[in-house]
C-alpha cells in the first residue's frame, strides 16, 4: 500500500529528529531547516542519507537540496532574483512552496524555502514514481 502524506511526514520527522537532535514537537511542516531547526551543511547530507534509507529511494545529489542554485549572475539583481532567476529556481525545486518567497525574492531568504513540508513534497513525488 502506498504511503499517505501523513505517514511520509512522520517518517521525515523521525529522520530530522535523529539527524538534528530535536524534540518531536519541534518538527512542524512549516519549520525551516536552517532557521527554525538549526540544520547546517553537514546535516543536509546526513538528512539525505537517512531519507534514502527510510524510504528506500535514491536521492541524486542536488535534487532535494539544490546546490550552486544560481551560477549565472544575470539571474540576480541588487540581491534579489530576477524573473528569470525565479523561474529557474522554481524549475530546480518543484517541491518547494514559493508563495512567500515570490513576494520578496531576496537571495538571503532563499534558505527559508527549505521547510519540512518541502522534504515531504519531494518524497511524496519520488514515491509516486
Amino acid at each position, binding site marked *: 500500500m502506498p504511503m499517505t502524506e501523513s505517514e511520509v511526514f512522520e517518517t521525515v520527522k523521525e529522520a530530522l529528529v535523529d539527524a538534528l537532535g530535536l524534540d518531536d514537537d519541534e518538527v512542524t511542516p512549516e519549520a525551516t531547516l536552517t532557521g527554525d531547526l538549526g540544520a547546517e*551543511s*553537514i546535516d543536509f547530507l546526513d538528512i539525505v*542519507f537517512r531519507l534514502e534509507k527510510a524510504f528506500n529511494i535514491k536521492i541524486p545529489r542536488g535534487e532535494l537540496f539544490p546546490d550552486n542554485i544560481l551560477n549565472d549572475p544575470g539571474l540576480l539583481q541588487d540581491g534579489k532574483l530576477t524573473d528569470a532567476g525565479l523561474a529557474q529556481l522554481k524549475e530546480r525545486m518543484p517541491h518547494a512552496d514559493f508563495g512567500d518567497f515570490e513576494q520578496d525574492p531576496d537571495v538571503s531568504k532563499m534558505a527559508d524555502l527549505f521547510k519540512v513540508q518541502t522534504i515531504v513534497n519531494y518524497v511524496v513525488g519520488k514515491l509516486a514514481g
Partner: protein
Amino acid sequence: MRWIWIDRFVEFVPGRRAVTIKNVSLAEEHLHDHWRDFPIQPASLMIEGMAQTAGILVGQARDFKEKVILAKISKAEFNDIVLPGDQITYEADIEFIAPEAAATRGVVRKNGEVIGEVNLMFSHVDRNMAGLDFPKENFVFTGSLERMVAPFLEKPDA
C-alpha cells in the same frame, strides 16, 4: 606533545572497518587533573580516539588524498567510566562515503566490554560544502597516523 589518542590498530579492513586500542596510564598528564583525586579518562578524549580511528579509516579509503576532518558528532553515549590500567577499544565501521563527506558508526569497549557508542560525520575539507579554499598541503595526514595503519595495507606492486 603528539595529539594521538590511539596506540595501535588491531584490525583494518580498507573502506570498511577499523579497530584500535588505547591503553590508559596513570603516567599520562591529562589524568593528573581529571580528576586529581579520582582519575578517569575524559569522554571527550574517547570521542577523539574514535574520531582518529574512524578518520584514518575514511582517509585511507581515499588514499589519504583528501584532508578529512571531524564535522559532526551524531551520537556519543557512554555508560561506564574508564580508569587508569583499562584498555579502550575503538571499533569503527563506515556507514557511507560520499565525495564531500563520510559517516561512521562506532562502538567503544573497556577491557572488551561495550561501554559506549560514538557515531561521527567527517568532511572532506577540499570538497567542502561551504565552498571554502584550504591550503594545498595535507595538514591532517602528516605521516604519523598513516604509519600506524601501514602494516595492514598490502604493499603496492613495485
